């Protein structure tokens, strides 16, 4: 096709064009968490209120008196994403705004660890909020310390190579499923169309909705910035981070079936945080991934 004819061809846009997250923000080069936010806001639109606890995103948004967002943001305390969002929702309703979607937007540390109790409480009460956990598998904002989302084998500054993390990653999705909330979904920044579709679906549901979003972090994973999307894609395709939904804590739907599930090796090797792993340890990772994938298929009746 010649440049001439191409001139008239439109750009293919597979996700909404609106940008509610502006450039100029303070994320590192190639930050996956930033893409996650960009996609979610495209799906929800401007009538969205964000509650962001301490996490990289508390910095990314930009310092006082600035913001990168086109929607209101409350920067809340580390452990209070869910409880603050609950209050914001109640406050908006009592002042006549029943329309705005209230989103708690937290990292894995703020979700799996210090914010888990507030999240569990909100879920038990089925508060009418969307809770999004962008998972970069460690405390990045404070300089890469282990969280309970840090996977087996990973180096962090508090799990030095000699004492690398040996406990498995906490299964946050299973924990939320046990709360029988109306909607749970996993998502990956490598699959924006799937993410956007599910966020739009969630927007239409009342009650507590939870998203677990995979967001690679070049700084914390010691990976190359350009590999961010690739790593996320690999994790989806090798079953390390499968894409699925759970309705009412019962009904599992796998969004992306894996005909030929790839091995985890290349994925592992691209990340400096795993550099020290010996073959048998990588094999252990593979075994765990396979077991989790099998369990998921069983649950989804596949």
């Amino acid at each position: 096709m010649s440049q001439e004819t191409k001139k008239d061809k439109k750009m293919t846009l597979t996700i909404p064009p609106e940008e509610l997250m502006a450039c100029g923000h303070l994320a590192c080069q190639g930050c996956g968490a930033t893409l996650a936010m960009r996609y979610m806001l495209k799906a929800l639109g401007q009538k969205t209120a964000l509650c962001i606890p301490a996490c990289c995103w508390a910095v990314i948004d930009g310092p006082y008196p600035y913001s990168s967002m086109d929607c209101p943001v409350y920067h809340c305390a580390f452990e209070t994403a869910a409880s603050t969002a609950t209050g914001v929702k109640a406050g908006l309703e009592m002042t006549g705004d029943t329309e705005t979607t209230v989103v708690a937007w937290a990292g894995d540390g703020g979700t799996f660890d210090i914010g888990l109790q507030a999240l569990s409480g909100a879920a038990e009460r089925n508060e009418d909020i969307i809770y999004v956990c962008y998972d970069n598998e460690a405390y990045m904002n404070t300089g890469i310390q282990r969280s309970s989302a840090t996977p087996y084998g990973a180096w962090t500054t508090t799990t030095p190579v000699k004492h690398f993390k040996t406990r498995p990653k906490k299964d946050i999705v299973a924990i939320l499923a046990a709360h029988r909330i109306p909607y749970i979904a996993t998502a990956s920044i490598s699959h924006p169309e799937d993410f956007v579709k599910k966020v739009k679906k969630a927007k239409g549901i009342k009650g507590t909705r939870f998203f677990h979003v995979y967001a690679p972090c070049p700084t914390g994973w010691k990976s190359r910035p350009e590999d961010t999307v690739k790593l996320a894609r690999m994790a989806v395709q090798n079953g390390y981070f499968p894409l699925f939904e759970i309705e009412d804590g019962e009904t599992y739907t796998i969004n992306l079936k894996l005909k030929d599930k790839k091995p985890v090796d290349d994925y592992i090797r691209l990340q400096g945080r795993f550099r020290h792993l010996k073959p048998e340890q990588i094999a252990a990772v593979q075994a765990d991934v396979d077991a989790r994938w099998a369990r998921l298929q069983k649950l989804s009746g596949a």
Partner: protein
Amino acid sequence: MKKVIMGNHALSYGAMLARSQVIAAYPITPQTQVVELLSEMCADGKLDAQFIKVESEHSAMASCIGASVAGARAFTATSSQGLALMHEMLHWAAGGRHPIVMGNINRSMAPGWSIWADQNDSLSQRDTGWMQFYCASNQEVVDTVLQAFKVAETLMIPVMVILDAFALSHTYEVVDVPEQALVDTYLPPFKPEIRLTPADPRAFGGLTGAEHYMELRYKLERDMEKAPALIEETGREFEKIFGRRLGLVDAYRCDDAEFVFVTSGTAGYTARAAVDDLRASGLKAGNLRLKVFRPFPFDKVREVLGKVKKAAVVDRNCSYGAGGIFCQEVKSAVSGRTGMPAVFGYVAGLGGRDITTDSFKEIAADALAKDRPEEEIVWIGVKK
């Protein structure tokens, strides 16, 4: 309309009459009746509010903060351990300028577990930026909650309304419960200038560098300094409508007094009884009950104590390694000023130990016997 109610229910009535819109609270002895009655009021439709039955006090305050920044009037209540667990969020509510009103039942801190009265819980929050109003009767509790919302929302600074465990929280007294219509004339709806809404998208509380943080805190301090005058003014306004005066202090027979107790909470009422007895026995005694502790009523305290020879501050608390907290702050307030009395400090009534009129007589005797304080603090009624 007159009712015989317990102090905890007085808090609930206050929150209801103030038309609280969001309540987020967690139960703790001796506060439980506050939330129980509020739950009923919501269930019976007497109060049009969302009651968030959170899983901890930390979340209770976080939810109140969220509700408040969204523009709703938020109320909660707690005590001791619960208040302590909120500590981080207390700093947050004040620093973020969220005019929440909270009832706190003064209960001593564990360990050992104690459900009984002392002020260490609320006074340990003296540096969080909250205003603190101490009550001495159930009537004062209802009235103070209404004033608290008015003051808080004017200055955008949260207020803690404080009552002693059991001696007030569980004590039934006659209370003239204000008419809703009159309350509505006194307390207008909460309409903050800036609030969290997509209509005016802003980020609240983002990373604040050294070039901005201090000015924001300076603004908080300056607004806090406006409170004393505002409390007196809204107190007079309250009197006009309801016939009961609310102010910074309750000075009883202080005008011609030579010896004055400085007190707070229910002990501040028992002290009145003691003053009458002491007067009967010929001592020109008086009682200065501090109704407001934060902001500290410097001028009032100096004004009253300026005419006195000796003052005995009675603390139902102790800052270990520094002494009674009211005493410390009173001493500081009169420090370096001429014409101020010798200030004697006494710690009494920790962990629910009773403070009786005899306690005050013992204190008076001790203070009158010495011409200046010998120890940092004297402990009253303790088996040494």
